[in-house]
């Protein structure tokens, strides 16, 4: 008896109950007018039979795992296992695999001996859990049949379940946000036990080393994150915006004011293709094509420290990627300005350019600014372009031809090596993640508030 067997049994019982309820309702129908369609009677029976039992099994599974582990460890072979945690866990895991039939025989003799214990314990506890669940299922079915009658509001009952499902789906969004905040916060607090917050937030040296073994003479490194935030701001908020804002804004202006409708109808999708290209492609393009060009440019104008992993290369490509975001937000805001303002300005004798510069843009400015803030937040959170095109050297420099590193690069770097999960190095990644989350959250909120509050002026 395994839990899977119980699951299948419950489903079969539920289907049978549903079918029976439906035919009962059908039969009743011949005698008079039912409150709900027979389908709903069947659905009601199915839901009340299956769902309580399934919820019980879902809750039982982790309990069962723990009980099985305890039973195995309590058995004579289990007592004989070594005390060392990691080795014991390994043997247990192997025994579990043999019991499930995933592997034929294990490396350790103990796991072969433990496997039948596992099977026995699992069978025992699964029988208990599955049995109770099946009882619940039958109880649910019996309850439903007692209620079947003319006046039975089956449809309302079913709809109450569906409503519960809808609410649960919506709550997942909150759960996710909560999950992000809590998991990042938890790990960050553990990080701050090892490294002081002041050093993290205000220190200017980033050199994350930790001694791998207790007796190693290596230093515990510096975790000052200011160079990282500077790199992120430099590439994402400065260089990328210098590229994206003029190009995006002027593209939006051209598309809304000057382009003929047919031209606009195929130019706009082309701009959206820019947004749809995966960021790995941009990163590779930056590393392969743009970075050498930038380095040659830098060397040719006499900057000897031009690196092939320059901030300029990454910033340029990131700016290109952001153009559609700025453009579409600006497009929406400019289009939202009432036609009357435009017509009035033209009637006074202004040229189109003057209308745009003096009337439309100021009117659309909140939307444009909001769009820029959202674009900045997107650029700051961008990972692949900077991982592939910018470097790993934490520099505090204003020279765009030199290599800087960003918060996202470091997160990837810290977490994709072979690390022990508790070291300050891996925890630093979570601290950086929390900081990044907070910054993008604030930028997004400000952007949305700016857009929403000032847009109402015209409606």
């Amino acid at each position, binding site marked *: 008896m395994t839990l899977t067997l119980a699951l299948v049994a419950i489903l079969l019982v539920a289907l049978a109950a549903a079918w029976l309820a439906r035919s009962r309702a059908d039969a009743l129908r011949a005698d008079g007018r039912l409150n709900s369609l027979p389908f709903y009677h069947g659905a009601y029976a199915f839901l009340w039979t299956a769902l309580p039992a399934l919820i019980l099994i879902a809750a039982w599974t982790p309990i069962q795992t723990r009980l099985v582990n305890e039973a195995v460890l309590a058995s004579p072979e289990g007592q004989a296992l070594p005390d060392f945690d990691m080795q014991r866990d390994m043997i247990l895991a192997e025994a579990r695999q043999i019991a499930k039939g995933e592997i034929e025989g294990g490396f350790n003799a103990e796991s072969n001996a433990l496997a039948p214990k596992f099977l026995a314990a699992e069978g025992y506890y699964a029988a208990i859990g599955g049995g109770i669940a099946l009882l619940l299922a039958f109880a649910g079915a019996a309850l439903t049949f007692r209620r079947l009658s003319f006046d039975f509001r089956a449809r309302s009952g079913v709809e109450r379940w569906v409503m519960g499902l809808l609410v649960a789906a919506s709550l997942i969004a909150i759960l996710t946000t909560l999950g992000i905040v809590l*998991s990042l916060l938890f790990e960050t607090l553990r990080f701050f036990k090892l490294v002081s917050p002041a050093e993290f937030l205000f220190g200017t040296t980033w050199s994350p080393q930790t001694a791998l073994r207790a007796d190693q003479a290596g230093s515990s490194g510096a975790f000052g994150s200011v160079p990282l935030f500077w790199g992120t701001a430099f590439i994402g908020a400065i260089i990328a915006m210098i590229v994206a804002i003029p190009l995006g804004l002027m593209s939006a202006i*051209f598309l809304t004011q000057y382009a003929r409708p047919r031209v606009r109808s195929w130019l706009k999708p*082309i701009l959206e293709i820019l947004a749809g290209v995966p960021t790995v492609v941009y990163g590779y393009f930056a590393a392969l094509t743009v970075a050498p060009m930038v380095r040659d440019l830098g060397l040719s104008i006499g900057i000897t420290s031009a690196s092939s992993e320059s901030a300029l290369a990454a910033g340029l490509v990131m700016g290109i990627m952001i153009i559609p975001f700025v453009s579409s937000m600006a497009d929406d805001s400019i289009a939202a300005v009432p036609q009357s303002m435009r017509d009035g300005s033209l009637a006074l004798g202004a040229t189109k350019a003057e209308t745009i510069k003096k009337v439309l843009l100021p009117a659309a400015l909140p939307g444009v600014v909001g769009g820029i803030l959202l674009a900045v937040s997107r650029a700051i959170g961008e*990972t692949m372009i900077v991982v592939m095109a910018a470097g790993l050297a934490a520099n505090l420099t204003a020279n765009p031809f030199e290599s800087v590193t960003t918060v996202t690069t470091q997160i990837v770097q810290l977490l994709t090596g072979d690390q022990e999960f508790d070291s300050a190095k891996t925890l630093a990644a979570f601290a950086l*993640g929390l900081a990044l989350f907070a910054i993008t959250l604030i930028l997004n909120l400000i952007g949305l508030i700016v857009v929403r509050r000032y847009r109402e002026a015209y409606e």
Partner: protein
Amino acid sequence: MDRHLRKRYADERRFRMLGFLAIGLSVAFLAFLLVTMAWRGLGGFTQTEAKVAIDFPRSDLILDPAVLKGPEAEQAVASANLESVLAQVATANYGPQAEELFGGGAGRALGRALIADPDLVSRRAELWLPVASQYDVAAKNEGSAEAEQLIAAIDSNGGLRRRFNGDFLGGSDATDSSEVGVWGALKGSFLTIIVTMALAFPIGVLAALYLEEFAPRNRWTDLIEVSINNLAAVPSIIFGLLGLAVFLSFMHLPRSAPLVGGLTLALMTMPVIVIAGRNAIKSVPPSIRDAALGVGASKMQVVFHHVLPLALPGILTGTIIGMARALGETAPLLMIGMRAFIATPPQGLTQPASVLPVQIFLWSDEVGRGFVEKTSAAIIVLLIFMLLMNGLAIYLRNRFEQRW
């Protein structure tokens, strides 16, 4: 007066030209990107082959035709050390500098030829076999001087040709750049997207329905709305961190499996679907709802029998765009461990897998010269998928969208 007017008109012309230049520059960047990728990547779809004359009876090859016809053929071929035979053959055909002309790919090709025609071992034959990666690269003019010399020599004898490389689309990752394929990554991508879709679509649509149709206007629902809007704008790497902390460390799910990747991407895609869904549901006119209520439907029936089918095209468009975005994501999947070298395609949802963008990222780090064209070729494959999905979304939107 006139001069001033002319200045204003000139200003106007300049401004218009600036706008045109801006959009021209943006499109030019896109074109530059696509053309560069295509140019570098098309070579990755072809494989250079060299002609060799093999005298099987006189070579070191010890294989029995009877074994080759039987069930043990593949094992026999694998243990026959075809690579050293080929090294000999290459030297015999093209001189001592051609000893490394053929690599593992050629060995496998020879094995397949022998199994297809077991009587080959008893006679002399001329075969076209794929060359090793350093010579493949040389044939495309990116290799070392000696390799290019040898290739030129072989070519002048008419012994070189280029063939479409089916192994690229059908094979998996390998250490040698001429043997890599994207199939393993494609399958991993496919499995991951299925998990993402199966989770994000129902949850997203149901949440959108609740928020739009049923939710009362109180602080809780405001909170849910704000959460969803924020989640849609959170950087994708944060979802990777969440996946690492919750799915890997807390729930101990298998690392680098499509299941975990799909869960992480589902969390990321769900807000996008909710927002698209809300817009689609909002655009269904109230008259439909009122008419259904007037005929006696319950609120739930109105939503599921009338509003949802009408809003479905818009929801599907948003979903496809969200899926296309998830397909191209790399950072969150790197966080959950998909950084390893996966040499065989995954068999199920809980086996280690890779996805195409991660594969591109890993290959971009490799130093072998042949990897540049393979990476670009993989990028071409990825871009084609993106194009197909976005094109499908646009087609659906144009075909099924109703303007009320």
